[in-house]
C-alpha cells in the first residue's frame, strides 16, 4: 500500500462520512453543507487519480452551482431550517436492507475481477487540460454541442414551469378554478 493509496483512502473515508451525514442529518441546511464536504473530498480523489479537469469541473459545478441551487430550493419551499423530526420516512429498516443489498451486489460483482489490478499513475498526464481538451474537441464535439442544446432545453423548461405558476397565481381565485388547467389550489388537496 503506497502513500497514494493511503491518501485516496483518507479522502474517500471523509467523502463517505460526509455522505452519511447528508442522508442522516435532521437539518436540511446541514445536509446541503455536508454535501459540499462530500463533493470536495470527491474532487480531491479525482485530483489524486490525475483527473484534474474532472476535479475542477466538479468543484465549479457541484460545489459552486448545484449546492447553491439546492439551498435556494430549501429557502423557496420554506422548509424548516431548524432540526425537524419528520425528515425520514418510517421505513428506515427496509431502506437500510435494500441499500446494503445493492452495495453488496456492487461490491461482489465489481471488485472481484479487479482485485489485484494496479493503476499505473506515476508520471501520467491522463487528465490534464491539454489531453482532455484535445479529446473533447476532436472526438467528442458533436455530443458536446448536443449537451449545450440539452442544457438550453432544460433552462427553457424550468423557465416555462416557473412562469406558468406565477401567471396563474396572479389571477383571482374564481378565474383560476374555472381556467380548466388542472384543479385549483384549494381543490387540489383532497
Amino acid at each position: 500500500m503506497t502513500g497514494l493509496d493511503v491518501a485516496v483512502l483518507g479522502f474517500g473515508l471523509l467523502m463517505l462520512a460526509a455522505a452519511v451525514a447528508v442522508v442522516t442529518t435532521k437539518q436540511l441546511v446541514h445536509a446541503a453543507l455536508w454535501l459540499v464536504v462530500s463533493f470536495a473530498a470527491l474532487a480531491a480523489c479525482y485530483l489524486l487519480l490525475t483527473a484534474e479537469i474532472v476535479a475542477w469541473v466538479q468543484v465549479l459545478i457541484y460545489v459552486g452551482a448545484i449546492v447553491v441551487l439546492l439551498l435556494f430550493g430549501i429557502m423557496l419551499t420554506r422548509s424548516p431550517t431548524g432540526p425537524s423530526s419528520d425528515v425520514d420516512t418510517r421505513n428506515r429498516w427496509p431502506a437500510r436492507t435494500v441499500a446494503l443489498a445493492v452495495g453488496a451486489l456492487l461490491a461482489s460483482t465489481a471488485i472481484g475481477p479487479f482485485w489485484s489490478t494496479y493503476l499505473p499513475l506515476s508520471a501520467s498526464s491522463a487528465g490534464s487540460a491539454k489531453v482532455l481538451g484535445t479529446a473533447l474537441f476532436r472526438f467528442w464535439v458533436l455530443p458536446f454541442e448536443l449537451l449545450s442544446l440539452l442544457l438550453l432545453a432544460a433552462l427553457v423548461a424550468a423557465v416555462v414551469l416557473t412562469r406558468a405558476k406565477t401567471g396563474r397565481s396572479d389571477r383571482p381565485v374564481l378565474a383560476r378554478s374555472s381556467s380548466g388547467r388542472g384543479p385549483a389550489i384549494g381543490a387540489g388537496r383532497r
Partner: protein
Amino acid sequence: MHLALAIALSAALFTVGVYGVLVRRNAILVLMSIELMLGAVNLNLVAFDLLHHDRLRSGQVLALFVIAIAAAELGLGLAIVLLVYRNHGTIAIDAVRDHADRDPATVDRAS
C-alpha cells in the same frame, strides 16, 4: 494505486445514495441523494478510464457529460419541486398522493 480501492469507495457512496433516496421524505433531500449516486458513478468512470487509457479518453469525457446532465436534471427537478410546493403546500414525497393507486371502495366512501 489499487483499482479495487476506487471501486469499493464508489460502491459505498452509491449505497449511501440509495439509502438516502429510499429513506428521505423531503424531495430536495432525495435530489441530494441522487447527486451522491451520480458522484459514485463518476468516480467509477474516472478510475476505469485510467485503467483502459484509450485515445478518446472516454471515461473522463463521459464523467464531464454526467456532471453537465446532472446540472440540467437538478434545475428541472427543483422547478418541479417548486411547482409541487405551490400546488400542495408540501414537498414531503409521501404526502403527494394524487396519483396513488387507491382502493375504489374507500374513495367512494370518502366522496
